[in-house]
Structures are given as structure tokens and as C-alpha cells.
């Protein structure tokens, strides 16, 4: 359906150029703003070029899962709101929303970004549950990386409400922050033709051959990955994609 677009994008890559004039390793302007909505215990707005998402953290006290009685609960949910793109429809989350949520979730969980042991109130009975909801406001490409950034920024912004052992009093907030140990960052490296690059636009996403989302935690260690797109990748390509992701992640982390 998009042969003309693809041919044109490829022609530009042939000249060492991106369709919108950017370099292959260049992100659009990234703006992170914390504390953007009052009723969430933590929140952040992330803009990557024209892409805009809001993440909100809600904290509550729940029963832990039976297999992890000492661990706090973590939930990551992504709402690709129909408000944010003509391509999104109202209704329950589709594959794309679930993929973004799960990739963000793995980045947080596997990096042990939150020290979930410290969320235990009473073993086997009560633990803090951290719910992160990410809502898209304007979907203009690279929601994966924007969502991951927003999730971490919102966690960083979060404060515990008062809890007397029975009920959570959302009206009185404490100064106590979440036990955050690390700040993982995701970078999605996209491949079209023979070119690999970061931070795709909507147009580039329409004709993507393959992509690799790499979640990176401190020391440049990789903590989660997700390959997308319909074309396979060689080990060599994956190597180059990871190198690019690690380099960009170091830059993005500075903004957190």
C-alpha cells in the first residue's frame, strides 16, 4: 500500500539522508516534564518531536500474588487513545497497545528499576501496588520509546500517600519516594532497506522492515528486547542495532 513512500524513503537513505532531514542516529527534540496531573501520585509528560504521551502512577495497597508474597505489585498499561491518532480506534487495547505496555513492563521489571521488596507492607497480606498508565495525546511515531521514558519519569515523580495500616489517604501525601534503584531507557532501532536509524516518524513506521526495541539499564547493560516488523535480522545487524541503542540510551538517560 505504501510503495511510493517506501521507494522514496529508500532513495533518500541512498543519499545518506532521512526523509525529514534528520541524521540516522538523531532523535527529535525530547522534552520531559514531571508532575503534570494532580490526582496521580506521580506523573510525567514526554514529548518526542510531535509525539506526546502522559504517564500517571497510582499507588494502592493490595494483596500480593501468592507466588511472590513479599513483593509489591507492578502494572503497566498503555492506552492508545483514539484522540491521539486517526489510526486508533475506541475499544479494548489491541495488539499494539499491549505490545507497548509489555515491552515497557519488561524494561522496568527486568532491570529491577523498582526495589519491589521494599513495597511489602505485611508479607503475604499487604503490599503496595504500583500502577502505571500511559496515555497517548498525539501519536506521531516512536510511542515505544516515549512511553518507556514517560513511565520512568512518572515513577521518579511519585510520592507515597499516607497509609495508616488500614486505608490509604490520597488527600495527604508524604515526601516518601518510590524505592527506585535504576532508570532504564528504551531505544527502538528501526530498519528500512539496509539502513538502521532511531526515533521513527509515522511515515517511517508505515514502511518499516524490522525494528528492535532495546531496554538499557545502568552501565549500558541490556535488560529487555523486542524484535518487531516482518523481516528477519542477521546477528551482525542486531549487533549494530544494539550498539546504536546503547549509545542513544546514554544520551536519553541524561534527560531523566
Amino acid at each position, binding site marked *: 500500500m505504501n510503495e511510493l513512500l517506501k521507494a522514496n524513503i529508500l532513495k533518500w537513505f541512498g543519499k545518506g539522508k532521512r526523509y525529514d532531514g534528520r541524521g540516522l542516529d538523531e532523535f527529535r527534540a525530547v522534552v520531559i516534564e514531571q508532575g*503534570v*496531573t*494532580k*490526582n*496521580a501520585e506521580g*506523573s510525567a509528560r514526554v514529548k518526542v518531536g*510531535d509525539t506526546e504521551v*502522559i504517564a*500517571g*502512577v*497510582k499507588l*494502592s495497597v493490595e494483596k500480593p500474588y501468592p507466588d511472590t508474597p513479599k513483593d509489591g505489585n507492578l502494572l503497566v*498499561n498503555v*492506552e492508545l*487513545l*483514539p*484522540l*491521539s*491518532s*486517526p489510526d486508533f480506534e*475506541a475499544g*479494548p*487495547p489491541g495488539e499494539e497497545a499491549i505490545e507497548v505496555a509489555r515491552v515497557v513492563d519488561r524494561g522496568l521489571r527486568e532491570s529491577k528499576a523498582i526495589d519491589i521488596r521494599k513495597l511489602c507492607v505485611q508479607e503475604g497480606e499487604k503490599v503496595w501496588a504500583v*500502577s502505571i*498508565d500511559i*496515555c497517548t*495525546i*498525539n*501519536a*506521531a511515531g516512536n510511542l515505544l520509546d516515549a512511553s518507556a521514558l514517560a513511565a520512568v519519569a512518572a515513577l521518579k515523580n511519585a510520592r507515597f500517600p499516607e497509609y495508616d495500616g488500614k486505608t490509604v489517604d*490520597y*488527600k495527604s501525601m508524604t515526601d516518601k519516594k518510590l524505592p527506585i534503584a535504576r532508570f532504564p531507557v528504551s531505544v527502538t532501532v528501526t530498519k528500512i532497506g539496509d539502513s538502521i536509524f532511531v526515533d521513527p516518524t509515522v511515515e517511517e513506521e508505515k514502511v518499516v522492515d524490522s525494528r528492535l526495541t532495546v531496554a538499557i539499564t545502568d552501565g549500558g547493560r541490556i535488560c529487555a528486547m523486542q524484535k518487531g516488523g516482518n523481516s528477519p535480522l542477521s546477528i551482525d545487524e542486531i549487533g549494530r542495532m544494539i550498539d546504536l541503542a546503547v549509545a542513544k540510551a546514554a544520551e536519553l538517560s541524561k534527560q531523566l
Partner: protein
Amino acid sequence: MGYDKRVDGRKPDELRPIVAKAGVIKRADGSAMFKIGDTVAYAAVYGPRDLFPKFLQDPQRGILRCKYNMMPFSGAGDRVRPGGSRRSKEISMVTEKALLPVLNLEDFPNAVVDVFIELPQTDAGTRCAGICAAAIALADAGLSMKDMVASVSVGKVDNMVAVDLNYAEESYEGGDVADVPVAFIPRTGQISLLQMDGLIDGESLKRALEMGRKACMQISEIQKKALKEKF
């Protein structure tokens, strides 16, 4: 005692501070943000566009479809489970009916205009803020409209008839509270949204509606200004 002084020090007929902005969502055909006090609404308009399934189409005019939604972290207290509720369905419906009277959709038979309203932060009056944002977004999308639609909640807290109740007032426990969301078509003074819950006497209600009309005239000026400020 009774409720003789508003919690935030406003006069009975005084609105909370309002910020309105048009064109905040680039991918939409029209969009707006409307903030009143601590309630924030975004609205995006898509269309007129193709409508499927076909049996929903009206061969004489385009149809309007609204969807109101609170973001999961928008409310004081517990997380709002995503996916819609009976409440959000009903609000979507009354929002549609509040906006429809001003829209001229005859040029777009069989098509649909979609309005999506999202609330990232709430402190009462959410449907009214949503309607205010949606009206700006519809105008921003270039649709033909006889007028704007402005909306606010009015009501009575104990003995005080007041406009634009906030959450603390809606949940006042020292006496009866009536919450009456209304929407006005400013030029004609007609009401296109009217709901109410709580307890109120007829005379107070009439006074509240008159207060609401005046407040909506102010709101419509802010809406118009937001549209002009885009250019």
C-alpha cells in the same frame, strides 16, 4: 452556620480560573484543551469521515459521535479502570446531545464526526469541561456551527446557590447539595444539556440556571478567544 463561604473563597457566581487553547493535538482535524480549576479536558475531532458499519449511516446528514473518558490516574482516590463504564457511556451520550443542536451536518451525508474527550485530571465538572473543549475543537476542525456551546455545573450547596462546584463542594456533608450540569447555546440562551442530582427547590433551581447562563456567556467568550489566539 451553614455553607456561607465557598471553600476556595469564590463568590457564588464566580467561575474557577479557566485556561483554553485550540489546536493542541496535531494529528486531529480539530482539537482543544479546556482547564477549569483543577479539571482538565482534552478534545479531539476527527472527520467528517467514512462511517462503518453502513447501517449507522444517515443519508441525510452526517452523524456526531462523542466519547468521554477519564484517564486511569485522573481521579482523586482509586485508579479508574480503563475501558469505559455505564457512567462514561451516559456522559458520552448527553455530550452528543449538548453539541448537536449547533452543528450543521447536512453537507456530509453518510459520514461521521468523531469527538474524543479525555480527562487527565479531574475536580468535578468534567462533562461540562469536556463539552467546552469539544465545542472549541469542532470549530477548530472547520465544521459549520450556528454557535458555540458553553457548559458549567450549577447547583446549591446547603443554602448557597452557586456556579461551577468543585469536588469539595459536590461532596459537602453539612447539608443538601444539588449538582446541575448545564450547557447553553449562548446566542439563543437555550439549554442543550441539563442533568441534576441531589436536592433543590424550584426557586433555587431557577436562580441557579440564570446564574449558569451568565457564567456560560463568560465561558463562550473564553472559547472564542482561544480559537482566535491560535492564529
